[in-house]
């Protein structure tokens, strides 16, 4: 099967080169036969890569330890769930996964793009083929997942224990799907530049793809946070690690694009900016992969370091030069169709929103790369950790949160003073009231206080938008309030889905602010002894060590400590925290013992207990007890954000003009004629 896999890679490589050639030549010379050939090359490339994936999974499930990749990432006793996910647990497998999914997305783009956008498709096939060929090249010449060993080990090394977590099964593919799907909007952007069809039509073709990509990236980031929280044991979910930053960068620029694209759709403005954002987001995703793979920047994700990073560096530079050369040559064709009428308008607020998104992306990138820059300039390597990122980004994040509430309140084109007063009265009151209530309640920390007050303001904005829209429908169509709300949302999913995303963002900000009140202590306890910890809400938690048991489970030897928890004397239940020594099928230890955190979560706070180890081989154990306020809201805020994203991209609802009319308002779009 590995021979078949290698052969499939070579076939996909040749098909990709053919697809790129026929796609670009067919598009530029308007040759229908070549265009069709490029289209079929993308389909065939996907087929060949799918065969390679099946071949690698076959080797994984059949424990073919003669294959280096199988021996490096699995063992005979690895649970089947993780044997499957070992496909993308290592460098080589994840490259194969990436190339396959990219060719799948390329195929879907060819199949499901509307007929009126067909002019772009040959170029899209060309770009997808070039990017896929790059990944296959890296596999064939630097990181082949089908490489065989000169001997066959009795058992494999097993999977890193930290990757043996459900979060790690879903987090990497989600993030990859986000990164990979970004290639399709990028391909359409390049297609628009190459074909000189630079009206707003190409935006319509990529709208769904952009949201899909943004949604996958969001879910990938959230799952990564969840995995870090439950698995790594340091009690947090975001450490400003270079690889986390690398995933955040394209998310920020994509979010900026999702806002500014509305201006191009409604007013025919910001064409240059939107194209630059799409190209920049894709380049940032490749740069993220470069950072992950090269090890050029020290990161907790060092298990993926390898020389393939330099292939990515070359590809990144070459792609940037080609894209921006094409971009600058087409700038004269990218003129705005309308003018900005007022500085106090929705358009202007979106421009400031974009400024902040891109500004935050710049500051994250700057901080991530500053150690390299410092070494180059002053010959000294410095560390840029959370204190730096928090200092620079928290004020920017709060400004962005404020704009999240301000933007929807300002009218398109021009807002009058009366309009502003009417729009801002309720949200500002809610925000001020929230801030004052917290101040009176004893909160004195500036940033958390601001985050929560601004959160109140944004929630006020969203509720007001829903309430006014519902009321307008109720009056206009005599619908019940529930029906009016359902139809308001159903017929304008993009707008109201966006507001749901804003609610998710507010919840996330409030949850992040909660971490400012984290408390923790370390204690050494003999069985029967207790430690106490004061919660930010004023409760006293008592943690009583009941004892330690040792047993074998699946592919690991477990040492589990049981803790009884009481809040102000009232028993809440038991928590178990573990040390796990993973072993191979022959009982040999495979990795250092890992920690399994005990977490008790409710909507107010999480109790987070870590078994550090034991003293002198006895049941006397070292524990770390942490109380993390509002963490529950990070996961539920994330779910609301995802729900909003799904609402935005959910298909159906009729034509845009009909939806706008039925939603109870009408905005005339650029290029729309009189009825």
């Amino acid at each position, binding site marked *: 099967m590995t021979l078949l896999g290698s052969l499939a890679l070579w076939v996909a490589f040749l098909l990709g080169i053919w697809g790129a050639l026929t796609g670009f030549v067919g598009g530029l010379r308007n040759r229908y036969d070549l265009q069709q050939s490029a289209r079929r090359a993308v389909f065939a490339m996907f087929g060949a890569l799918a065969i390679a994936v099946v071949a690698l999974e076959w080797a994984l499930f059949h424990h073919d330890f003669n294959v280096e990749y199988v021996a490096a990432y699995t063992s005979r006793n690895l649970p089947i769930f993780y044997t499957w996910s070992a496909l993308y647990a290592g460098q080589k497998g994840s490259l194969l996964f990436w190339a396959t999914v990219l060719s799948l997305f390329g195929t879907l783009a060819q199949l499901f793009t509307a007929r009126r956008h067909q002019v772009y498709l040959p170029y899209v096939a060309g770009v997808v083929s070039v990017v896929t060929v790059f990944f296959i090249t890296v596999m064939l010449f630097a990181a082949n997942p089908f490489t065989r060993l000169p001997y066959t080990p009795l058992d494999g090394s097993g999977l890193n224990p930290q990757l043996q977590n459900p979060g790690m099964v879903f987090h990497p593919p989600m993030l990859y799907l986000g990164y990979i799907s970004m290639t399709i909007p990028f391909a359409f952007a390049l297609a628009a530049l190459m074909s000189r069809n630079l009206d707003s039509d190409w935006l319509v073709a990529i709208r769904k793809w952009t949201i899909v990509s943004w949604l996958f990236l969001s879910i990938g980031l959230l799952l990564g946070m969840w995995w870090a929280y439950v698995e790594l044991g340091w009690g947090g979910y975001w450490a400003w690690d270079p690889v986390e930053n690398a995933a955040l960068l394209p998310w920020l620029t994509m979010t900026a694009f999702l806002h500014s694209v509305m201006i191009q759709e409604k007013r025919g403005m910001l064409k240059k900016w939107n194209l630059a954002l799409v190209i920049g987001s894709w380049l940032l995703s490749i740069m993220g992969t470069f950072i992950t793979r090269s090890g050029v920047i020290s990161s907790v994700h*060092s298990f993926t370091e390898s020389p393939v990073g330099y292939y990515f560096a070359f590809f990144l530079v070459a792609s940037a030069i080609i894209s921006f050369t094409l971009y600058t040559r087409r700038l004269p064709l990218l003129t705005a169709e309308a003018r900005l009428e007022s500085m106090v308008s929705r358009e202007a607020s979106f421009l400031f929103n974009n400024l902040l998104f891109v*500004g935050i992306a710049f500051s994250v990138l700057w901080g991530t790369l500053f150690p390299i820059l410092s070494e180059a300039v002053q010959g000294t390597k410095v560390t840029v*950790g959370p204190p730096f990122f928090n200092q620079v980004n928290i004020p920017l994040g709060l400004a962005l949160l404020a704009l999240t509430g301000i933007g929807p309140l300002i009218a398109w084109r021009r807002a009058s003073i009366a309009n502003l007063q009417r729009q801002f009265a309720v949200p500002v009151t809610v925000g001020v009231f929230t801030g004052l209530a917290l101040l009176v309640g004893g909160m004195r920390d500036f940033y958390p206080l601001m985050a929560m007050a601004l959160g109140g303001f944004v929630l006020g904005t969203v509720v007001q938008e829903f309430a006014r829209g519902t009321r307008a429908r109720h009056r206009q169509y005599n619908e019940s309030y529930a029906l009016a709300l359902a139809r308001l949302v159903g017929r304008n999913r993009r707008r109201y889905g966006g507001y749901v995303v804003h609610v998710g963002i507010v919840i996330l900000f409030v949850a992040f602010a909660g971490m400012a009140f984290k408390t923790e202590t370390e204690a050494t306890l003999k069985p029967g002894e207790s430690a106490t910890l004061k919660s930010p809400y004023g409760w006293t938690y008592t943690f009583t060590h009941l004892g330690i048991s040792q047993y074998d489970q699946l592919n690991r030897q477990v040492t589990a400590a049981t803790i009884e928890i009481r809040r102000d004397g009232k028993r809440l239940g038991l928590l178990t925290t573990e040390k796990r020594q993973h072993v191979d099928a022959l009982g040999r230890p495979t990795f250092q013992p890992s920690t399994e955190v005990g977490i008790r979560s409710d909507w107010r706070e999480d109790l987070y207990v*870590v078994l550090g180890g034991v003293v002198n081989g006895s049941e*006397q154990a070292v524990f770390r007890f942490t109380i993390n306020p509002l963490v529950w809201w990070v996961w539920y805020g994330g779910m609301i954000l995802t729900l909003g994203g799904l609402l935005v991209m959910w298909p159906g609802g009729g034509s845009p003009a009909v939806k706008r009319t039925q939603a109870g308002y009408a905005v005339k779009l650029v290029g729309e004629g009189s009825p």
Partner: protein
Amino acid sequence: MSVVRRYVATLHDPMDRRRFLGSGAGAFLGVVTTWQRAAPQGPDSLPGSGPSGRLWDPSRAGRPLEPVTAADNAEAIQAIEKRLRCTCGCNLDVYTCRTTDFTCTTSPEMHRRVLALANQGKTAQEIIDDFVRQDGVAILMAPPKHGFNLAGYFAPSIVILIAALLLVLALWRWTRRDAEEPAPAVAVPADASPEELARLKRELAELPE
């Protein structure tokens, strides 16, 4: 034709009623007489109470640890350690690493060094300076605010401020040009009755946009 299998069960030592009752009585008396001796077992995990206080295989529980002292939990020590980077390659600060990655031997060593320096009566800044002297500025979780590092702290804010100023200037120019050259007014024929237009105006006034 049917085959019937017969099984013959034989009691080799059949028990009569007297022996059965005698055994029962003996068992009952045995339980009663030993009742006091078998005291209810205490928590089997109490340290020093026997083999149950020790782990069956301590090596499975990772590296042996020392008991936590009050100094380990001291806020002043934690604050110092949160400013120092563990050099094991984990990218975490010393405090987070030593309370998270219990296989790491670097962060406990750095922690002991912090404690030793604190015991010598050194202030937090002196302790940090001592680490910087020995390990370089990369030992700090954030670069010190002087020299080129200031660019690290302030470049993002300065760039964003300049971009914001440029944006305001551009917006001002665009909107002024628009005011000087107003778009030609196009008369749009109304295909609605005056009543309908009045209703539309009312509805629009109530809408958010």
